[in-house]
């Protein structure tokens, strides 16, 4: 990767253009918009030629790391390979020119795709009805919680304003609950990392709308007591919501619908191989059990019918997987995760020894090289040093239960060679830390930039071009 320091505005020269539009003649059209409706100050837009644009963005791309570049062991993100046939399908002009409001009789093919996706996702998850409107995981979560609230509202049960969330939950869970008008009640985990059923029991009551869980949980552990948890929550009149971020190890193995979950969301950009795009677009379809079918179809939480381009990609993936290959998907993801765990537990602290699913958590280095005089290497330092070796870092400092948390999820699309090479490098880094943690603390050494001063960036924010002038 090469450091390239331009912004498109800096390439601008008056009179250059990068577009090509036809001339049109519309005879008889005179007049113009009244001056009082026009903008006074012209928009700052770059004037660049087409080649400038292509070079600029090509150079920017060369400062980026993607799944196509290398291994991304990001826990809870499922950075699996993004198949290229998906891209070909999504780019078909026959789909690109369809307006979302055009007459239904001209959209038979689109309807078939949504129906087929619903049927496939129902088969894979055990849920019955789906909406494809949510555009992302957090969006799906919000929609799912709205369904939970609507269910109780329709029953006239307005007391149910609380939702239970495990202490290991991701931040989107409480945030989504708050946006939905629900209060969070936290249930503790036991020493073994699983939800403490005894702590759950007293929390259940007539004011609880339901529970939000992911399974396996954020520690990568399967919640063995899920049958009992489901029974307890249902008995108390609540619903179970499944956060589908961790669905990958269950692909072809088990189904949330069978475990008693009533509502769930999926992340097509995780489990179903659609590309992350640098932070979107994704898609977060929500599936529900039969009794919630009416509600799920009635909620309008996005502009039209969701991210159709993403749904197309996911369906192409499901067709390639088919019923023959899906059975191995989850198992291989779990194999890869356990392999790394067993191979690295000699150098990294493993707080929970039991078998994991698709991901697991280390709690920092066993020997971080710290002494009386100097600080040892932290998880952040390990992450930054990994960048030097051509890897993306794992998820760090999550879940909050472990202070030096490092969550690793390899996914099933990585070969044994890739994992072995990663394991070697992680051992190397651990050895470096024990010898001299400064190598890690000053990392990355080989990236286009070194660690930025994020504190200064937050204290004096420069959030757009030419903001510098305003800061002084």
């Amino acid at each position, binding site marked *: 990767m090469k450091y390239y320091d331009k912004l498109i505005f800096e390439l601008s020269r008056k009179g250059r*253009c*990068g577009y090509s539009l036809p001339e049109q003649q519309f005879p008889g059209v005179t007049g*113009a*918009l009244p001056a009082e409706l*026009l903008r006074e100050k012209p928009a700052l837009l770059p*004037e*660049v030629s*087409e080649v400038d644009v292509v070079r600029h963005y090509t150079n*920017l*791309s060369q400062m*980026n790391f*993607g799944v196509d570049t290398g291994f991304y062991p990001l826990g809870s993100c499922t950075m699996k390979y993004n198949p290229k046939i998906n891209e070909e399908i999504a*780019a078909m002009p026959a*789909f690109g*020119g*369809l*307006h979302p409001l*055009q007459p239904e009789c*001209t959209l038979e093919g689109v309807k*078939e795709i949504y129906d087929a996706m619903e*049927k496939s996702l129902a*088969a894979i998850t055990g849920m019955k009805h789906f909406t494809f409107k949510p*555009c992302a995981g*957090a969006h799906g979560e919000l929609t799912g919680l709205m369904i939970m609230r609507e269910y109780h509202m329709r029953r006239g049960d307005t007391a149910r304003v609380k939702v239970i969330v495990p202490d290991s939950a991701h*931040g*989107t869970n*409480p945030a989504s609950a708050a*946006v939905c008008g629900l209060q969070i009640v936290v249930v503790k985990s036991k020493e073994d990392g699983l939800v403490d059923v005894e702590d759950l029991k007293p929390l259940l009551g007539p004011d609880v709308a339901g529970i939000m869980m992911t399974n396996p949980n954020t520690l990568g552990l*399967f919640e063995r007591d899920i049958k009992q948890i489901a029974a307890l929550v249902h008995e108390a009149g609540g619903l179970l919501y499944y956060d589908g971020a961790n669905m990958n190890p269950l692909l072809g193995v088990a189904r949330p619908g*069978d475990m008693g979950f009533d509502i769930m969301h999926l992340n097509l950009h995780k489990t179903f191989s659609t590309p992350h*795009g*640098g*932070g979107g677009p994704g898609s977060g379809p929500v599936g529900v059990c039969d009794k919630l079918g009416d509600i799920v179809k009635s909620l309008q*939480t*996005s*502009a*039209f*019918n*969701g*991210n*159709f381009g993403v749904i197309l990609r996911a369906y*192409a993936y499901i067709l390639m997987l*088919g*019923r023959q*290959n899906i059975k191995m998907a989850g198992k*291989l993801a*779990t*194999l890869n995760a356990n*392999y790394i765990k067993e191979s690295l537990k000699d150098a990294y602290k493993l707080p929970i020894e039991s078998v994991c699913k698709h991901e697991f958590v280390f709690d920092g280095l066993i020997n971080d090289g710290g002494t009386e005089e100097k600080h040892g290497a932290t998880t952040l330092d390990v992450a930054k040093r990994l*960048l030097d070796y051509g890897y993306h870092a794992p998820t760090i400092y999550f879940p909050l239960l472990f202070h030096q948390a490092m969550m690793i999820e390899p996914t099933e699309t990585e070969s044994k060679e890739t994992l072995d090479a990663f394991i070697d490098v992680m051992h190397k880094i651990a050895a470096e830390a024990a010898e001299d943690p400064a190598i890690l603390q000053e990392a990355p050494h080989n*990236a286009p*930039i*070194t*660690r*930025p001063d994020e504190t*200064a960036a937050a204290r004096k924010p420069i*959030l*757009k071009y030419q*903001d*510098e002038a305003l800061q002084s």
Partner: protein
Amino acid sequence: MPGFCYFPHTEEDIREMLRKIGVDSLDDLNADIPADFVYKGEYDLPDALSEQQVREFFEGLAAKNTTLKVFAGAGAYDHYTPSVIPYITSRSEFLTAYTPYQCEISQGTLRYIFEFQSLVCSLTGLDVANASMYDGPTAAAEAMRMCVASARKKNTVLLSAGLLPNVRKVVETYAKYSGINLEYIALKDCRTSLDSLKALLESGDVAGAIVPGINRLGIIEDLSGFADALHGAGALLAEYCDPSALAVLKTPAEWGADIAVGDAQTLGIPLCYGGPYVGFMACTQAHMRKLPGRIVGEARDSQGRRCFVLTLQAREQHIRREKATSNICSNQSLMALWVTVYLSLMGPQGMKEVNDLSYAGAHYLYDRLLETGKFRKVSDAPFLKEFALEPLVDAKALQNVLCEAGFFGALLTEEGYVTFCVTEKRTKEEIDAMIDVIKEVRE
């Protein structure tokens, strides 16, 4: 076991790995899943297809749809997409990258987002923009939440009846479960009524109002007096706007708005049956800390090099958890790149031409439609590319005739009007051909 191109494991790999882990079989690794829940039997899924079969399958499905000549808008616009854009956005370093949390190897993503934020500020005239949102309607819902978060103890947000139906529906959905009270500003003579707004402000409970820059009837709103009235009542003005039109129209900042939201699909994103699009949100400096979503800021590394990072993260859900203004996690990053490349190519001159061509085409169609004698004017107010007319023929019959002839237009509004939209992609020949078809429609 036959190989599958996405699973690299050979039988030998699996054996060795199981041995290292210390178990006998893959199923041993799932022994912690209660037997009841281990799925037995075949999944009810289609047989696995080869790539060629996948192509044929989708070609078959594509053929069951009809691409029409688009003369409608209502939140999704058929603007021209320069060829450079998909070329750039399909570069795998952009396409397959994760969110730029590890900034040292994500400078590409962070820089284009910084450019996107800058361009949104440039078009809206406002001080700060975020890294994008899912779409226009959800951005409007976030603006509603931001108004309430900024105003202590006020719980009403006003929505103009001139906003698109899908924008109102999404905002209503978010409001229902947040317990936020919504009231509607009436239209008068096809425009958002300032009198109606003032009357609603008397409740003293208004935190903000969301008003369109161009309403759903295509009319360009004159927002004089709106900001003053709202600010006088301690409330915020949020304008729902079309960023393509903002290249020429008075900006939200010039109208005195505190927040601007909308959908940047009009900046070269294909229709694609409604998604993925990209929402945007911008605000004045004063409200920066309440702006939801990701924000990229400039920084310096240890060697003083300019670089970019996700900043002000303490506002966001993964840190604030239930106290965050929003739960939003991702943006629509790749679509923000799409829009950034579009604006870079178009520049000020290109954007002016897009608007001039759309204006000319729309007014040409408007005049020709009135000449057919099958429509009546509903307003003399100025419009840009979209407009409404009262049909003097049966609207449904009109839509059917158009559809059969390969055109999409005459969308019905709640008043019983029909709307049309003309962009720079539509030619005089296409308009004349559609007029010929319309001339044949009986009462």
